[in-house]
């Protein structure tokens, strides 16, 4: 389509109007007739035996309908919350996969572990009764964080997991990697932590379960990024109700960032409880509850070595990582530090040898799972910090060292040493574009100007890659995934030519109602005003695997295109009949079927009408109707990448870091809506800068979360961030019909090492060589003082 609404147009979003008018419909906004409310009693201890639960007083309080405990779930035969990915140990044995009861039965294993569920006629009554549930705990020593859990003699989260090891996994070739290190001119070593963060979608999780006895039908309204997966897990593992009796609706969802991918116990419990009390049951998380129940992200501790030859060429990489799993295995948790992390350790660089080992560790903390980027930020951070350190150690400019080692455009498709095959990219082009847009040539002047104002200026760079468009089903199946990761779409053309698209992806901020409509405009020539995108309801949509891993356009969009191909082809047969021509002579362009080389045309709407009113119609060979479905299974991952540049100014007296410039050049493939793509980049950058400078979920050795509210957990605010300079250089993905790669996670992946690189660059003249995320004013100030003291001693 030429134009205003097709691919490449910054169309303003269709969904905005309802949000701006306050007419969004989020899960907590839904109140069903006879609505009742659930509140959970949660363990205040990280590790404790549950010796008794006395619910009698609570049961007698006004408005209370039921108080349910772990024993009730066992008696009812409810299944535990399953893990969706099986990772194998080095020796081929399975990971330790402990049970995950929906309500703790004998033992609570993290602060926030649900122990009892109170259901009452009002939220206030449920809250009051929850305080009257008397639980006797036998407090046990806890493995409160990675350090505690991996110390000799550490308390065990699970008896079945000695050393708290969930799995001990590896990838790559140790022998060729050892050989590379044996001949290396330089070996650079680093040890670092990738800090733990809480996802903090602004809408807290909520679930409203409704059992209707009249037809044995369960309906769940939930804050989910993938309602079909939730339905599948409810049916197959937890509620044991067949899918045709189970509807899962994820209405408007206020952000996800990974945390709403997973099937959570509360979803199961409100459905089960609804049948028990005979009324719909709604639970809405409070923010403090969210901090201790939503799956967190990151939390790695790694040691790595880089082997470099005499010419500055990388010849080997060795990595050993400890990854915190939390107490229970969340849906995709085992995949994050393995197939979404270690497979990315080649980055955008040409590495002839890599060997990585990952030990996943149980701790008495809430689960750790996918959070924006999921594994890929951890890989990029480790690699980029290591490359920066190599540049310093070898006395080579950071940009030049990267340039020397980037995979060249002529090397694609590029097979890495860690399983992935990158189809296409141009990492030099994004590097050049970012440097130009940042006006890097004049950086030194800016540094001097900052110095005149008493500020230490630093420059940071990250050249990164990610794998998204998740994922080829057979491949991930071979790697332990217990689900396929294709996507489904149904394109329904109505008799008068308007279109409804049913997609299995879910929009919780991404703007699918606009971008997917643009695909219809592009292909069928139908205005986006005449297109409705339906998502988030298992009763309306054929199937789907939801939205995460920057997969919606690459996988979901491709499924829509596949269905559109079928629509266009069927329309050709109808048009050929109407135009009395052969199908081979019909072309479809700009919303019209035309007999090639003539002015004989039928508009798309006329063909649609004929399909539903088939009076003059090829009825012997073509069915009436114009309604097609497609499933699309991707052939490979997609590989967005790019360069992120950051400049910071540090006040040496206070340690306050100000981000003064963020310039990025990404390659996210073909862009459907530039405005939305830029917006996705902005949000990812804010979360990446948040992790680098402000945010950290801090568990102490006892497993208490020290910062469980916005009073103590520092979310990035408007005044903490600058305007972002975002650029794109497109190489089209080679294996999906749209050429798209994905943009949802790039910012969160690329920017943290650039921020820390900039901080260290600013502090380098003082002798500071390391700082951990988040680089808070206190940490920076202490690093400055320590460096000054060390210099003083030397002098």
């Amino acid at each position, binding site marked *: 389509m030429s134009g205003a609404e097709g691919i490449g147009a910054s169309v303003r979003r269709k969904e*905005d109007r309802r949000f701006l*008018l*306050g007419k969004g419909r989020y899960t*907590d906004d839904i109140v069903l007739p006879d609505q009742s409310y659930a509140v959970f009693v949660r363990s205040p201890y990280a590790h404790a035996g549950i010796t008794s639960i006395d619910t009698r007083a609570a049961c007698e309080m006004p408005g209370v309908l039921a108080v349910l405990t772990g024993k009730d779930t066992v008696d009812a035969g409810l299944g535990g919350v399953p893990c969706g990915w099986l990772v194998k140990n080095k020796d081929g044995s399975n990971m330790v996969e402990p049970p995950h009861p929906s309500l703790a039965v004998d033992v609570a294993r993290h602060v926030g572990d649900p122990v009892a569920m109170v259901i009452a006629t009002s939220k206030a009554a449920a809250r009051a009764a929850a305080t009257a549930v008397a639980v006797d705990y036998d407090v046990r020593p806890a493995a409160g964080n990675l350090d505690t859990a991996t110390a000799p003699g550490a308390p065990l989260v699970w008896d079945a997991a000695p050393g708290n090891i969930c799995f001990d996994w590896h990838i790559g070739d140790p022998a060729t990697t050892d050989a590379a290190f044996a001949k290396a001119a330089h070996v650079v070593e680093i040890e670092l932590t990738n800090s733990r963060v809480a996802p903090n979608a602004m809408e807290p999780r909520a679930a409203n379960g409704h059992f209707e006895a009249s037809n044995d039908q369960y309906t769940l309204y939930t804050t989910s990024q993938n309602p079909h997966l939730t339905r599948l897990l409810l049916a197959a593992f937890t509620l044991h109700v067949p899918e045709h009796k189970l509807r899962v609706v994820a209405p*408007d969802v206020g952000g996800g960032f990974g945390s709403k991918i997973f099937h959570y116990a509360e979803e199961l419990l409100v459905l089960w409880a609804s049948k028990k009390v005979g009324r719909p049951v709604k639970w809405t998380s409070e923010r403090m509850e969210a901090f201790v129940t939503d799956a967190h992200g990151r939390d790695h501790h790694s040691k790595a070595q880089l082997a470099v030859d005499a010419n500055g060429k990388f010849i080997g990489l060795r990595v050993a990582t400890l990854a915190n799993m939390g107490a229970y295995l969340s849906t995709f948790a085992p995949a994050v530090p393995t197939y979404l992390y270690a497979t990315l350790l080649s980055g955008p660089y040409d590495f002839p040898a890599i060997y990585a080992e990952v030990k996943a560790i149980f701790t008495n903390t809430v689960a750790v799972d996918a959070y924006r980027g999921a594994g890929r930020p951890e890989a990029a951070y480790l690699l980029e910090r290591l490359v920066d350190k190599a540049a310093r150690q070898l006395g080579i400019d950071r940009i030049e060292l990267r340039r020397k080692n980037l995979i060249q455009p002529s090397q694609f498709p590029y097979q890495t040493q860690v399983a992935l095959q990158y189809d296409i990219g141009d990492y030099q082009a994004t590097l050049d574009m970012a440097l130009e847009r940042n006006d890097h040539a004049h950086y030194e002047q800016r540094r001097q100007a900052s110095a005149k104002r008493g500020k230490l200026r630093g420059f940071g760079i990250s050249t990164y890659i990610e794998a998204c468009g998740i994922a080829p089903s057979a491949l991930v199946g071979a790697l332990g995934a217990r689900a396929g990761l294709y996507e489904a779409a149904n394109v329904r053309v109505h008799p008068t030519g308007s279109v409804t698209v049913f997609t299995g992806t879910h929009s919780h901020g991404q*703007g699918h109602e606009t971008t997917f409509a643009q695909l219809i405009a592009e292909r069928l020539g139908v205005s986006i005003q005449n297109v409705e995108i339906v998502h988030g309801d298992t009763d309306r949509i054929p199937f789907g695997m939801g939205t995460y891993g920057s997969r919606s356009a690459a996988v979901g969009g491709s499924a829509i295109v596949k269905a559109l191909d079928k629509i266009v082809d069927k329309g050709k047969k109808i048009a050929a009949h109407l135009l009395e021509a052969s199908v081979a002579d019909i072309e479809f362009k700009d919303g019209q079927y035309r007999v090639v080389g003539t002015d004989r045309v039928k508009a798309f709407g006329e063909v649609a009408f004929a399909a539903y009113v088939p009076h003059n119609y090829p009825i012997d060979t073509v069915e009436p109707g114009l309604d097609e479905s497609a499933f699309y299974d991707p052939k490979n991952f997609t590989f967005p990448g790019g360069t992120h540049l950051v400049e910071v100014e540090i006040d040496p007296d206070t340690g306050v870091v100000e981000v003064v410039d963020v310039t990025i050049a990404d390659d996210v493939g073909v862009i459907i809506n530039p405005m939305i793509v830029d*917006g996705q980049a902005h949000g990812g*950058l804010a979360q990446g800068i948040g992790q680098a400078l402000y945010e950290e979920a801090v568990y102490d050795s006892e497993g208490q979360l020290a910062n469980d*509210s916005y009073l103590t957990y520092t979310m990035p*605010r408007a005044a903490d961030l600058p305007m972002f300079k975002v650029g794109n250089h497109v190489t089209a993905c080679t294996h999906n019909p749209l050429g798209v790669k994905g943009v949802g996670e790039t910012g969160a992946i690329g920017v943290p090492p650039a921020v820390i690189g900039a901080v260290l660059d600013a502090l380098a003249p003082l002798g500071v060589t390391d700082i951990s995320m988040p680089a808070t004013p206190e940490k920076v100030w202490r690093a400055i003082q320590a460096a000054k003291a060390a210099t003083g001693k030397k002098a």
Partner: protein
Amino acid sequence: MPKLTLRVNRQTHTIDCSASTLLVEALREQLRLTGTHVGCDTSQCGACTVHVDGASVKSCTMLAVEAEGAEITTIEGLADGDKLHPMQAAFQEHHGLQCGFCTPGMVMSAVDLCKRVKAPSEPEVRTWLEGNLCRCTGYHNIVKAVMAGADGMNGGKP
């Protein structure tokens, strides 16, 4: 339960209301004005921002009884019929929202700013929005939208 009379979006409502009911609870649960959102428990996120006598207030910091006699405006009362308020229009034009959850609070807060400061600068907007958290946009487009919305409120193009 005691009765309470509230003026919300130019209409008068009489509701049953306990002394401890927060304004946000009365709006969401009793008047079913669910455009006002709750994103935290500590008055930090600003998703519940409404106007009380024209000034922005986090409706989780105020008891419903305290609002008696005041003129309350929620996000549902901002537009002129089908016509978006210039600030709402600016948020759409500049892609100042993604998931939409913080949006009502952002818009209400921004309108108050632009009534106080006719043409706020970027730093003024960023500082003013200190009490409103957004996790989607990185604030970039929100800041652009607020500055454009100020223009719109002064009769320019949002």
